[in-house]
């Protein structure tokens, strides 16, 4: 008996070789995009100067350039661009996990209401003028709001002490609306200036990123990514159905709880630093699956890379389109992403039909 080898034409857009090339391309693309991202902005920095500054700062090579450029590159643009990558990667990972958990392609990181909770808390801090809230910093307040929402949705989304995906979905939607109502009410009471800040935050923005925003988000997204990769087989088993997954050794109640916690935590830290950037977590997992098929040992790493690259690109566009003003990231993620996703889906179905 002869079995076709793994290398021969597979059922997906990209075979094993294409997948390897794509991963390498994404890594290279990430480096190029980060350099471009650092160079772009109200004060453009030539690529040479970006490379020279980063070389001196990261590797201790060369003399670098003048102090003003060094400050712009190192204190503002580089952390911002890195955070864009981390946020994009984190949202995409959370999207992959949520879509696997509820076995629904429409799921995204926000169906648990986490972002709505973060928005409500952040809006309260920005509009109520409570010194205690403002003093903590918006990310801390937003994370507290996200975490509180997550606990509430988890408590409501259980049946007989176990997570029940449909019930949790409903609980997430309901709590999300509740939080959105709170946010809207606070917005009505806000001054025009506060309102502009609130809107900018809710639509997601990386403006004003400093190095202090990076460590927590980066570590959490990395840990979540490692956990997701370690459970790639169990994620695949989940797609075979509850009975099949159980019969193949997945402890479903425990695994579901793990998934919810990892996805919600990943979403919460990302939303806390960047606001409610939409569409990335919905789109990137689909793009990854269309390219390399649904197996999670390929989808998880590719989604992390694609999501990171995509948000760095979008953040560049946000600074270029209306320069010197900036657009909120969330507007551009959907404006650019939605047509691309539609095109890719149509292309994929045409190929299946043909």
């Amino acid at each position, binding site marked *: 008996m002869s079995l076709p080898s793994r290398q021969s034409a597979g059922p997906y857009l990209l075979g094993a070789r294409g997948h390897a090339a794509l991963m390498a391309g994404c890594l290279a693309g990430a480096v190029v995009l980060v350099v471009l991202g650092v160079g772009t902005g109200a004060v453009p920095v030539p690529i040479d100067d970006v490379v020279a500054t980063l070389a001196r700062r990261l590797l201790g090579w060369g003399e670098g350039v003048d102090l003003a450029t060094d400050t712009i590159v190192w204190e503002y643009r580089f952390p911002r661009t890195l955070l864009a990558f981390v946020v994009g990667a984190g949202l995409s990972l959370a999207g992959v996990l949520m879509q696997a958990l509820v076995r629904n392609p429409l799921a995204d990181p926000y169906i648990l209401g986490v972002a709505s909770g973060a928005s409500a808390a952040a809006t309260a801090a920005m509009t109520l003028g409570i010194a205690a809230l403002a003093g903590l910093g918006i990310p801390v307040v937003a994370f507290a709001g996200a975490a509180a929402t997550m606990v509430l949705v988890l408590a409501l989304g259980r049946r007989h002490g176990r997570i029940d995906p449909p019930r949790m979905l409903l609980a997430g939607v309901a709590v999300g609306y509740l939080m959105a109502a709170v946010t809207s009410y606070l917005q009505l009471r806000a001054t025009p200036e506060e309102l502009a800040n609130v809107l900018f935050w809710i639509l997601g923005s990386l403006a004003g990123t400093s190095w202090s925003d990076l460590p927590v988000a980066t570590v959490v997204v990395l840990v979540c990514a490692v956990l997701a990769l370690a459970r*790639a087989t169990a994620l695949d088993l989940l797609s075979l159905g509850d*009975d099949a997954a159980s*019969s193949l050794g997945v402890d479903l109640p425990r695994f579901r709880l793990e998934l919810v916690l990892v996805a919600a935590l990943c979403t919460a830290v990302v939303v806390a630093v960047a606001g409610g950037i939409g569409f990335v977590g919905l789109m990137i997992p689909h793009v990854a699956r269309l390219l390399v098929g649904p197996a999670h040992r390929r989808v998880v790493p590719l989604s992390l890379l694609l999501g990171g690259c995509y948000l760095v690109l979008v953040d560049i566009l946000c600074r270029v389109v209306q320069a010197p003003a900036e657009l909120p990231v969330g507007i551009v993620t959907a404006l650019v992403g939605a047509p691309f996703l539609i095109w890719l889906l149509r292309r994929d179905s045409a190929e299946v039909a043909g």
Partner: protein
Amino acid sequence: MSDVLAVGGLEVRLGERAVLAGVDLRVPEGAVVGLLGANGSGKSSLLRAVFRAVRPDAGVVAVDGADVWRDLSARAAARRTAAVTQMPGPLELSVREVVELGRAPHASGWGGLAEPDRAAVARAVESAGIAHLMHRRCSTLSGGERQRVLLARALAGEPRLLVLDEPTNHLDVAAQHDLLGLVRASGTSALVALHDLDLAGAYCDLVHVLAGGRVVAHGPVVDVLTPDLVRAVFGVDVHVDTHPLTGRPRFSTAPLTPTHQEEPR
């Protein structure tokens, strides 16, 4: 003869309702055992308790003497028992990926397959006759092909016991015989829920009949599926004779006639 599966005093409740109310059942080594019963009789719940998807409220499910709920982890139980279950809708994984997932209870968490895993997958693929399908997406398969793939996935785990929940549903006649023939040919002990009495007669060594969450009869097919029992459990009249081609029992069913309905049991 030793029993691969021994179920004793099994109870499963859904809220207030007892779905299984004290079920005893054995699958001897190498036997194909049919599980018959009307819809709602508890067949699926029994199978799900066996392959560790529903935790029983009381009783024991033992595979090779080990209680799958108390003595074994989910993975250890999955190494002994493999299930052919319904697919939850279109699946974009390739056939190869699905069959390889049958090795999940044996492989490490990082999804790598070792040489023994690959060998087991190759044997399962050959037994199920699906080598030509390996690169297809599951969503493009016909019903019969899909069930063969699920059987291959189960066999890839080299289980001591196969559990199949109505594996012939929605299959054409040839595919029904094909699939159950493959189950028999695999030589693995099996517990199969079926609706079709003729298929049970043709492929099962023994049958258990469930009604109202209890086993109401068990034994060789011809001894168990008497006209009286079939009338009582399935609500149809039946004429039993010998299949002219296979020599196995043949069941010709008909709606209950009023005279039969009025007969005292």
